[in-house]
């Protein structure tokens, strides 16, 4: 008897080897399906680049300014509507034409400076009014245009006031000195590239293993697996484990080939911790897909079921929408998604440079949700195939 044979019969060893074999089987399946391979390549590179280039900031919003006053002060005001927020498209249009521009969407903002503007200012016995008309059919753009527009007018107003009051001695004022933590240059691509990375990991982890699972169910190959000496847990675990490895490789590529060199996204915390928790997150989200897979009989059903789950998760877990601004019932549902916690974890480690102590709460909750999802999926999976 050789010494190795004992080790071969060790149940733990056998179990691990079975899982390993099953895991390895998944890779050729992924790579051989070329469209799926192309998909994985796309989500971790080009897709991140697209998202990182996006901005929700007001950018060269088209303004029409009708300056009926044509004084030094009115021209000063016109001058202040400028890049990066605004771009004066036209001045002194006929009011009807100007409104038609707004109607067509050719301009967002129409500013009217009345003829007695500078006169009213120099007399100083009444407020000089500037009128703004804003296209708010796209609410977020309209809101930003309104707020930046009033800031420009407000700023000029303050300067004029300060100028006059300076002769009258000092006046108290409260000045706000702003300091931005963790992203002092307010680099939008840091936020949007990380956000997109989390989104694509979520989609891939929920979809890929569960579709693979249902495919085996549809084709009957899952029965083959189940009459083999493998436990349902091993079958499921192997699928997800393979997925997790693919996701980790993808994240490495994304972070070090795309995000760091192109957009200077920092890694301020422990990179090992980040990858460990990304792996954990891959498991937790795969649990959602696996549970859904036990409810679906074919890929069509599963595809729709997952769409129902995935899009709300991606949009409403805190990446696109601020959780605190949502209705309470919806927020409570979102508290059950692993992504909600992984957002804290990922941004925490990458941008805020936190250690495990600070995010331990999120890590525990994410793990607990993952375990419950997997447990439920396994239980249903077993029940379906034991009869």
């Amino acid at each position, binding site marked *: 008897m050789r010494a190795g044979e004992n080790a071969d019969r060790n149940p733990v060893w056998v179990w691990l080897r079975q899982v390993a074999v099953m895991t390895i089987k998944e890779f050729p399946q992924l790579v051989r399906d070329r469209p799926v391979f192309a998909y994985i390549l796309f989500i971790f590179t080009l897709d991140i680049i697209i998202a990182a280039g996006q901005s929700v900031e007001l950018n060269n919003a088209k303004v029409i300014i009708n300056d009926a006053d044509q004084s030094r002060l009115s021209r000063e005001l016109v001058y202040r509507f400028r890049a990066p927020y605004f771009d004066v498209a036209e001045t002194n249009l006929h009011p009807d034409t100007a409104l038609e521009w707004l109607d067509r969407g050719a301009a967002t903002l129409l500013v009217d400076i009345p003829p007695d503007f500078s006169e009213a200012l120099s007399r100083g016995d009444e407020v000089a009014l500037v009128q703004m008309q804003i296209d708010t059919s796209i609410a977020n*753009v309209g809101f930003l245009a309104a707020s930046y527009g009033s800031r420009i007018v407000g700023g000029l107003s303050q300067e004029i006031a300060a100028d006059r009051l300076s002769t009258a001695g000092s006046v108290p004022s409260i000045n706000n000195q702003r300091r931005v933590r963790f992203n002092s240059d307010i680099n939008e691509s840091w936020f949007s590239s990380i956000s997109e990375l989390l989104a694509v990991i979520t989609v891939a982890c929920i979809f890929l293993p569960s579709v693979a699972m249902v495919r085996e169910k549809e084709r009957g190959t899952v029965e083959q697996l189940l009459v083999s000496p493998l436990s349902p847990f091993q079958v499921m675990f192997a699928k997800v484990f393979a997925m997790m490895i693919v996701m980790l490789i993808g994240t490495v590529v994304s972070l070090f080939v795309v995000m760091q060199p192109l957009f200077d996204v920092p890694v301020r915390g422990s990179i090992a911790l980040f990858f460990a928790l990304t792996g954990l997150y891959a498991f937790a989200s795969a649990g959602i897909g696996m549970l859904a897979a036990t409810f679906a009989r074919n890929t069509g059903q599963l595809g729709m079921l997952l769409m129902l789950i995935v899009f709300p998760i991606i949009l409403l877990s805190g990446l696109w929408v601020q959780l605190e601004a949502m209705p309470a019932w919806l927020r409570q549902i979102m508290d059950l998604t692993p992504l909600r916690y992984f957002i804290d974890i990922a941004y925490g480690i990458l941008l805020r440079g936190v250690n495990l102590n600070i995010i331990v709460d999120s890590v525990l909750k994410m793990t607990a949700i993952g375990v419950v999802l997997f447990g439920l999926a396994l239980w249903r999976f077993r029940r379906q195939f034991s009869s």
Partner: protein
Amino acid sequence: MKLKRVLVVAQKEAREIVRDRIYFALAFLLPVVLMLVFGYGMTQEVQNVPLAIVDLDRSAQSRDYAYRFIESRYFDFKGYVDSVRAAEPLLLDGDARAVIVLPEHFQERLGAGLPVDIQTLLDGTFTYRLRTVDGYIEAINQAVSGELQTRYLVEQAGLTVERAQLALQPLRVETRYLYNQELREIWSIAPGLVMFVLTLTSPLLMALSVVREKETGTIYNVYASTITRAEYLAGKLVPNVTVSFINGSVLVLMAVWYFGAPLKGSVLFFLGAMFVFVVWATSLGLLISVMVRTQMAATMITVILVMVFVMQFSGLMIPVSSMTGANYVIAHLVAPMHFNDIVTHTFLKGGGFVASWREFAALVVFMIGFLVFGYLLFHKRSAT
């Protein structure tokens, strides 16, 4: 192309959709549920921002100042903190997104008519929220500062309140919001969601319906039969377009009746544009299905494409006017952006064909292009 044969395929396809009860239910339920969830959830407003305050002055006036933030609905006051050092951990783990620091001698200096610098520390991880929060703080600070100055001028210089206000704010802006006078967010979100949900749901139905036949092998029956490519594809498109168009109509009704968005423009034009869009979305599914062999690939590619279209380029989440470079060009090359334009115009601006014929023409071009491509790429023999 014989109509009869198209109808036979269509009938078979329709039966297949109806027979799978769960699939059938989901096909109609999915858009409605997504519309409801996003209608309630998709707000770009920022409020209840967790806030901590460091009050180093502990005077009546500094407490008054802090209170203006505490009572604001935009902030969710998490409590006073003793020092800036003690406030940093709150920012680190997200318990506070903003910290306001009021310096010592706050009251004393203001009483003496001197300027005071307060400090705000903001969490910069979520950039777009940061700007809004910064705007809120600035606005409240300006308001308090203005009141203080008015009172000072009234007491010290003996001006009337009106004169004091005029001296402090000689210039004012009067704002009118067009098309959405009360700035109701749901008015622009709900119509946009019609585009959004249709883009998400329509392509998948079609993509799976062709690839399923490839995977199960029933497609060989089609290859072997006398039916032409055009007849087969048309037969596949009809039931799927019908399902999506019904869904679209339900979404419009939900936007108007449930979420209260106004449909000011021509309903007929809108339905026409929606039909063209739905055919485009369905042929996107067709195009994907002829290029892949497995349902897994079809699902993954459909999902990522619609996600990129709808979230990055449709103009609903990220305004097209803010895009630069390649992204601005790409946005114009995808149909959802043009349909989103039509949606905003017809719902809120009361437009019709005259206002949106360019976008409509673009949609028609996209639709025809995708149909032709799908047709050309679909062969009655598999490539291998």
